């Protein structure tokens, strides 16, 4: 095991970064998309049940199945992995953002309007900052989920640590099979924990002290 890692540490470190990179990009895109959708849902309340149903159905779909559906469209490789991870990453953020935005006290919004803030100002300066802790909780869920989904997406040649797990499976009986599978799995757990710490730190930096849960 030690030798296995020692021989390949450069490659392992690279793949950890690749894994983190894929997930970060996907979660970033997903967060932007989800917040935009949630703002829309917040304006057009009739869309809320639709959004909730899509979230529920979406989270029910097994990721392996979605990969199967995306392959004919996007082919083997990074695009399919990216699309698949983004799809799942959107859902928890969307759900939390809808709840978070609608949870902001309406009198605060009216009070902001009453002081002469424009609609964009109210959204950016009042509503989003107040919903942010809930949204960020969704982002954390999303990030953790995406780590595992990216591993499955490596089956269709997506980047990252998932490929180690699949190589372990393919080389069953071989000398390094267990090493590959272990490095892949543990590597992802480590990346996931580090990413979660980063998000916690982001929370400390971006959530106002006035609304932070002590």
């Amino acid at each position, binding site marked *: 095991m030690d030798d296995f890692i020692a021989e390949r540490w450069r490659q392992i470190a690279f793949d950890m970064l690749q894994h983190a990179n894929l997930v970060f990009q996907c979660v970033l895109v997903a967060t932007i998309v989800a917040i935009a959708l949630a703002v829309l849902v917040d304006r057009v309340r009739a869309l809320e049940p639709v959004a909730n149903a899509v979230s529920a159905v979406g989270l029910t779909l097994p990721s392996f199945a979605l990969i199967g559906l995306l392959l004919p469209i996007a082919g083997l490789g990074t695009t399919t992995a990216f699309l698949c991870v983004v799809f799942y990453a959107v859902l928890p953020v969307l759900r939390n953002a809808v709840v978070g935005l609608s949870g902001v006290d309406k009198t605060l919004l009216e*009070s902001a*309007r009453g002081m*002469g803030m424009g609609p964009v100002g109210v959204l950016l300066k009042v509503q989003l900052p107040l919903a942010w802790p809930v949204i960020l909780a969704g982002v954390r869920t999303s990030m953790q989920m995406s780590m595992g989904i990216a591993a499955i997406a490596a089956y269709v040649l997506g980047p990252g640590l998932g490929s180690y797990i699949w190589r372990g499976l393919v080389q069953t009986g071989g000398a390094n099979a267990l090493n590959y599978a272990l490095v892949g799995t543990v590597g992802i757990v480590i990346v996931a924990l580090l990413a979660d710490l980063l998000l916690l730190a982001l929370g400390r930096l971006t959530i106002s002290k006035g609304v932070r849960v002590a």
Partner: protein
Amino acid sequence: MTTQDPTSTPADRSRDSDGRRISGVEIELTDVVKRYSGQKTPAVHSLSLTVPAGEVVMFIGPSGCGKTTSLKMINRLIEPTSGTITIDGQDIRGRDADELRRTIGYVIQGGSLFPHMTVADNIAVVPKLLKWSKQKTAERTEELLDLVGLDAGKYRDRYPRELSGGQQQRVGVARGLAADPPVVLMDEPFGAVDPITRQRLQDEMLGIQRELGKTIVCVTHDIDEAIKLGDRILIFSEGARIEQYDTPENILAAPANDFVADFVGAGSTLKQLSLARVNELQLGEWTTAQLGDDAADAVRRAEAAGQDCVVVLDDRKRPIAWPWLRRLRSQTRIDVPRREELVTLDRRATLNDALDTMLSSSHAAAIVTGDRDEYLGVVDFESVTQHIRAQEASAVEAQEARS
């Protein structure tokens, strides 16, 4: 579009008959109607009224009578279906709604502070929208916190949840006044605090209004509050129909109809207590001492005056405690525990408030303070009852004179 700099508005251009400074402007509503789609009767049914510059007008009426709707049409949070509203002679529809609102103060129940912003940031919302410089905004924040009786150094960087309800409401008032708007709209501003704090806040608002002379329109559901704060009271019935629009004195003395009489309530002699202010009474002299003074000397002076307690003041002459002599006798230098809760009366408080305060105090009397909480004297139960008797007597005389 006319964009006024709200800081340079009418400021010192006029004074009222008492020589009081007026920085407010006139608001005029003409045939204003608000009809919501799908509702048979309009929420506001052809409302016309004038709010004179520099006056406080209280909107009151049963719930659902359209008083809040009428208020919100003035800053265009609700757009009227028809009719015109002018502020200082200008039609408000001629201006961008957001620009307009930046020149109108808006204070609502509980303060409605933004929980993610500090006290200073909350107050600075409108100045920032108006793109004031950092320096000017900071100075203004300091000034306003002082005006509403909060220590700027202590509270500037706190978050709303670290403040009491009354403090939050004070910051709410400061925020409404931030850009020195000529007009301030208030929607049940003191509805969310306990009675003692409410009384205190009302007194402070009167003090502030005395200093600034804004035009204030304030919605309330509390007739005592309306009588206490209002230069005029507007009593609405359903559909925002005006039942009576007059001074508190006239409304109490001569209700226009049964609706108003019912609304104002029976026992209007007692309601008169809300009209009379503490500063109309002769205040009692009391033995005072500074924190750290010789205790024995204070005890001696109090005994000479036949009193059994001493009012202790701090270095800015603000009363901080009212200890009994027996407690002072055990001290050499006067010392009172910090944060002792001393309820005082502002000189603008009503006699109603005075009685309330006395009932909750162990002295059957209350300490009266003036501007910036400076000690003025003491009002006791005896002087209040004397005042009531005098009023009753004059009322009887007036009645006899009429008949």
